[in-house]
């Protein structure tokens, strides 16, 4: 028997060699591993869970058709619990331990910004799902996304507020600790003033805040025509509740961070008369959308998928398409194939990846009325 330290060293050495040997003797039917990092718990859980459901549906479909390149797809998820700092850990774990060929996620831009440098350094392609902050794909050549970006979304919202809602005086309420909200507010401010409107108030809060009465009281004193709350759905619902309680019966608008069933659950009647931009509408007649809704509902007892689920589905299908065209799962080849994507028919619209690795696709404006989300308009880029 060898002394214990040496035994331990040997065991560790063998473990280190293991992935290497695996790589050398690549089993032709070894599964293609795809990892997702997402908030499955905590206050952004709705995004992570929806994205996972979308990806899961896509993986099931791919495997039923015989997988990709004849190999089954294996899907792994790491929970980042809606906490900053967790994304980096989750992605490192997926890449180093699980040896995934690509990373799907994240949802909040803050999380994607954390994960992107790690994927870039490891040459593992990453497809962000609903991170709309432009900085995300600027982190490196391996970082893609499947949603539109904030300069486009902000322009759409500004145009809609100005031309359809006839807003002259807009008040901004920004989540100062979310990159997404800060970026969207900045674009909205620029575009709205360029369109001849006036930003009368700019109030801020931090993620996790629950009391917005002070900010809303200050906003009320300036008599705006509408309020733009550019943060995420948990805070947006509380903002609507407290605004209505303070007698602010005006339109409240937001971005795709509002897209979650919890907005209606938490906000109830207070979210009536609000508008937000999002990635897809379940009311769309497009055949891809109808087929997606049918498959999703069949799997989740009649539930209608939200935009994040559709984006998750598209991200997985986009990746499968790129792997098929690359003919391999090697990072650089998949990256090149992803970058060359042209007119991919996704659920969230025809997707072409541009030079900045962003897709160009339309945005949808929806209205909340009587506890239901209704389609208002589709705006093309």
């Amino acid at each position: 028997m060898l002394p214990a330290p040496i035994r331990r060293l040997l065991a560790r050495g063998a473990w280190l060699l293991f992935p290497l040997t695996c790589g050398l003797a690549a089993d032709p039917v070894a599964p293609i591993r795809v990892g997702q990092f997402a908030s499955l718990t905590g206050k952004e859980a709705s995004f992570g869970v929806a994205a996972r459901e979308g990806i899961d549906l896509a993986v099931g479909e791919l495997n039923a058709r015989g997988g990709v390149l004849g190999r089954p797809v294996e899907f792994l998820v790491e929970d980042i619990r809606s906490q900053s700092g967790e994304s980096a850990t989750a992605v490192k774990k997926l890449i180093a331990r699980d040896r995934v060929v690509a990373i799907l996620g994240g949802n909040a831009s803050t999380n994607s910004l954390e994960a992107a440098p790690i994927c870039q350094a490891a040459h593992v392609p990453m497809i962000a799902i609903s991170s709309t902050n432009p900085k995300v794909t600027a982190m490196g050549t391996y970082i893609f996304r499947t949603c539109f970006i904030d300069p486009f979304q902000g322009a759409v919202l500004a145009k809609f507020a100005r031309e359809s809602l006839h807003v002259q005086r807009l008040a901004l309420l920004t989540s100062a600790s979310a990159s997404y909200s800060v970026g969207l507010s900045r674009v909205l401010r620029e575009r709205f003033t360029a369109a001849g409107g006036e930003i009368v108030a700019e109030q801020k809060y931090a993620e996790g805040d629950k009391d917005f009465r002070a900010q809303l009281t200050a906003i009320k004193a300036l008599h705006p025509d509408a309020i733009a709350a550019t943060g995420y759905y948990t805070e947006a619902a509380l903002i609507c509740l407290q605004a209505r309680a303070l007698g602010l019966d005006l339109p409240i608008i937001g971005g795709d961070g509002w897209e979650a069933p919890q907005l209606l659950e938490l906000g109830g009647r207070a979210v009536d008369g609000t508008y937000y931009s999002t990635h897809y509408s379940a009311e769309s007649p497009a055949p891809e959308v109808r087929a997606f809704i049918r498959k999703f509902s069949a799997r989740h007892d009649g539930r209608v998928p939200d935009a994040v689920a559709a984006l998750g589905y598209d991200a997985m299908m986009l990746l499968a398409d790129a792997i098929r065209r690359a003919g391999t799962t090697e990072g650089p080849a998949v990256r090149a194939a992803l970058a060359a994507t042209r007119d991919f028919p996704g659920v969230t619209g025809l997707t072409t990846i541009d030079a900045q690795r962003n897709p160009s696709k339309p945005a949808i404006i929806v209205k909340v009325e009587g506890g239901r989300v209704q389609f208002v308009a589709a705006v093309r880029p």
Partner: protein
Amino acid sequence: MSEFLQQLLNGLSLGAIYALIALGYTMVYGVLRFINFAHSDVFMVGAFIGYYMGKLVPEGTLWGGLAVLGVAMLGCALLGMTIERLAYRRLRSAPTLNVLITAIGVSLLLEYTGQVFFGAAPRNFPSIFPVRNFQLGGIIVGSNQLIVIAVSVVLMVVLQLIVYRTRIGTAMRAVSLNPKAAVLMGVNNDVVISFTFGLGSALAAAGGILYALNYPSIDPLMGVMPGLKAFVAAILGGIGNIPGAALGGLILGTVETFVSGSQWSTYKDAIAFAILIIILLFRPAGLLGRFTVEKV
């Protein structure tokens, strides 16, 4: 002017909740000389008892709301007494630091057990009291804000009566003054301390329900920030001093609201803690606290 009054009202209703939580910190400190960090999680448990009870009573009735409030206060009083019995009693003669660390342990235990049982996703708290908004001049007064202020005032008066007009209150003050002498005078310290924990935890439960009424999204970590703020409020007013805790809570809530409504809203929490540091520098015993020299 109407904006100022509206902000003042917003601040007072937030401050009243901080005050209720701060009372629990201050009472436990008064008798045991340690900070019960698990207090903010008892506050969270109170809100969750309210959440489950709220489903059993009809929504939006006064008696239903008061029943939920009563059950949650009772439940948390039992929880507080259990925590004291299981975690703190054995450590009563141990150094304060040991008890403090145990308190942090109990706090984390409650938070993460809560995540297992209640899930980490935020839930929508039912509106258990009738909701109506009143227009008073230029300001809008919500019924929930009135309920928060009314319930807080009533509970604080009741607390004051218990502490100064009853035998158990006299015993609490005796233990606070000198535990050894209290024992010699025939006071059962165990009962008094247990009662103090029960009373403080019941107030935390009331605070939890009132907080959830005003900000109806509850989760297992909801107690962390209000708990810290209430702790600051207790120090601000003078820890161990009951009117001081109430005053500290109101000041902190009002200051926080006015900062939030100004251009410096992102500094809201920074300012709350800056107040704590400044008070500790210039008046280590707090606004209403008395400075005592530690005898060796």
